[in-house]
């Protein structure tokens, strides 16, 4: 009797000790993404992609149980800032993963890196932090914002387009994409058109396209703008006379709205859901099985981000206190990216392959982007030279 109580007591004590020790070792990860308003679908993909990786590892990264705190930036800089500081100061997280949009990243960047917390962006990759303002506490697992457009210019060269009509919304990312395209495209840009952000009615732009004599259009119209543009492009009957080439316009978040109107459209990116490597096959099918929709680049990059953290924590043996050791472990990027080869440049932006993609309709009636061919290998961004790190 006595012994039973004793052993029971020891067991309880032991389990309490274990519980506290595992609590103390808990890895805390904060996430700041946009989950409100029209672009909420992008943030949701990031949450889902990260969660999938966590679930596959039974809620642990690098052997440490993870507490994930998801915050919505509502696409407002002041909200993003408040959420980010609360993650760093109240929750004392080990990592912040975010954001979807570059302007949100600008808003949260300083307080996070100044508190010496690692900030990993699963999507936004502005030039601001790639050059002289690169930071030892900042990593990007997606791309540098200009790269997809630069690769689109190469795609246009490869397809033999001579005259291209270029259009983007009038904000920083829009201008960056136009600049990126112009940088690599060797033909003539017939028109350069900037529309207001959130543009509704594209018929004037379509009229200009029809009289421009261009053989293709290149555009960057994320979210709802892309849905409207593709529908109206189709409605105006331009599909027969010109090729449509874009970045972040016909992706897995917008295709459910664009449907058949987008089939055959060209895109450029670092990945497609039907890429044939083993890791990706496993990822894409597991993701679709769990969430019922085809993952886009956002989900893939978040999935890779979780695996990156997993690899780094494994290397440090679970420790997060030694920031230099943790940084060194992150820089190695010793994980299997579902997009294939992946490593970090000196500015902590990725070095990776970029491909030409094309929108296809699957047999079950769903739409996705499909791998066509690799355009450029181990592609680095053009700002890393200014980074002293």
């Amino acid at each position, binding site marked *: 009797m006595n012994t039973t109580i004793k052993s029971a007591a020891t067991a309880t004590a032991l389990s309490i000790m274990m519980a506290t020790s595992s609590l103390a070792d808990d890895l805390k990860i904060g996430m700041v993404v946009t*989950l409100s308003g029209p672009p909420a679908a992008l943030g949701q993909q990031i949450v889902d992609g990260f969660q999938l990786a966590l679930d596959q590892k039974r809620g642990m990264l690098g052997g440490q149980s993870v507490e994930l705190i998801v915050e*919505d930036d509502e696409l*407002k*800089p*002041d909200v993003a*800032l*408040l959420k980010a*500081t*609360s993650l760093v*100061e*109240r929750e004392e997280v080990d990592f912040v993963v975010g954001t979807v949009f*570059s*302007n949100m990243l*600008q*808003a949260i*960047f*300083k*307080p996070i890196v100044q508190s010496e917390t690692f900030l990993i962006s699963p999507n936004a990759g*502005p030039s*601001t932090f790639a050059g002289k*303002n690169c930071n030892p506490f900042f990593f990007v697992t997606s791309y540098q914002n200009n790269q997809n457009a630069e690769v689109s210019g190469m795609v246009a060269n490869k397809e033999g387009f001579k005259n291209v009509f270029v259009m983007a919304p*009038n*904000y*920083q*990312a829009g*201008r960056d994409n136009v600049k990126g395209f112009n940088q690599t495209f060797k033909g003539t840009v017939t028109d350069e058109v900037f529309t207001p*952000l959130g543009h509704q009615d594209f018929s004037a732009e379509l009229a200009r396209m029809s009289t421009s004599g261009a053989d293709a259009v290149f555009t960057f119209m994320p979210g709802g703008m892309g849905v409207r543009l593709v529908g109206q492009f189709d409605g105006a009957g331009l599909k027969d006379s010109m090729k449509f080439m874009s970045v972040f316009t016909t992706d897995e978040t917008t295709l459910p709205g664009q449907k058949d109107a987008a089939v055959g459209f060209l895109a450029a990116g670092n990945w497609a859901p039907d890429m044939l490597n083993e890791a990706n096959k496993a990822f894409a099918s597991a993701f679709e099985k769990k969430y019922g929709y085809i993952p886009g680049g956002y989900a893939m990059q978040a999935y890779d981000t979780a695996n990156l953290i997993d690899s780094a924590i494994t290397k440090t043996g679970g420790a997060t206190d030694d920031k230099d050791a943790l940084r060194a472990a992150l820089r190695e990027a010793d994980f299997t990216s579902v997009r294939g080869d992946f490593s970090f440049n000196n500015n902590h932006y990725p070095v990776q392959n970029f491909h030409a993609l094309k929108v296809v309709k699957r047999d079950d009636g769903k739409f996705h982007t499909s791998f066509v061919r690799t355009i450029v290998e181990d592609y680095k961004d053009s700002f890393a030279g200014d980074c002293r790190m």
Partner: protein
Amino acid sequence: MDRGVLIGGIIFGLLLAMPVILPIVGANYLSGLLIKAMLLAIAALSLDLIIGHGGMVSLGHAAFIGIGAYATAISLENGIEEILLLFLIALGATASIALVTGVLALRTSGVYFLMITLAFGQMTFFTLTSLAAYGGDDGLTLWSLATLFGSDIVQEGEGLYFFVLVILIFTWIGVWRISRSRFGRVLKAARDNPKRAEVMGYPVARYQLIAYVIAACIAGISGLLLVQYAEFVSPSIAAWQRSGDLIVAIVLGGLGSRNGAILGAFFIVIMEEFLSSIFHEWRLIYGPLLVLLVLYAKGGLSDLILPKSSGGGA
């Protein structure tokens, strides 16, 4: 003692004590939230000067926050870091723009005044979005911040907290003294009956213009502090929705009352934080709550706390 002063005293006493209380209850992170609420309160107080006391409903007030903030940010980018100098620059920028728009806007009144200030606000907003050199729509992360006599005491933490608090108290006293002065009485007379005030020989238009410029200047100061706090500036702080938030704050708090603008601003910031932390779809509660407050709390929050307030509302 005036009960409005008492309530104000309690609010400021609590705010003064917070840097001591918060670490004890382990809620340090709330100081950022309080700074945000104080900044909103400063801007709301200034707007109440023209709406509550002057009867001039402006839907473009956030533009002046934006002008103050951008004047500060652009100066910082160009190496001007002394905060007293930045004050002068922000004041100069907001005052001159307020003077020009005010002369035009005050040719109208009532709803027309609301719409013309909206127009000027939108023009400011779109101008800010076109400043590509300073981030355009994306906004600008600031790598250097303002200093006080070369010291970085007003850059973050408690230094910044107390700095903002002091300015809030000055604004609170200043707005109230203006409203009690002869100048303020003329403003109020013009609000209640413009023709009579005119007939009585007061230069109503000039007084209203001066009030409009003073309010704009205070909003510009809150813009400067906002930059210092957020270390980031973007055109969205000048959007018309922000002007709407300010109106919501002062109507909620109680128009033209001594503490209404502060109560309203704190209510909004704290409600948002509180509701959104318990319920992701918190706006489903917040929206109807606003409707209920309008229907059942007619004098605003300050009247709920202090029925028959001596600083009687509009």
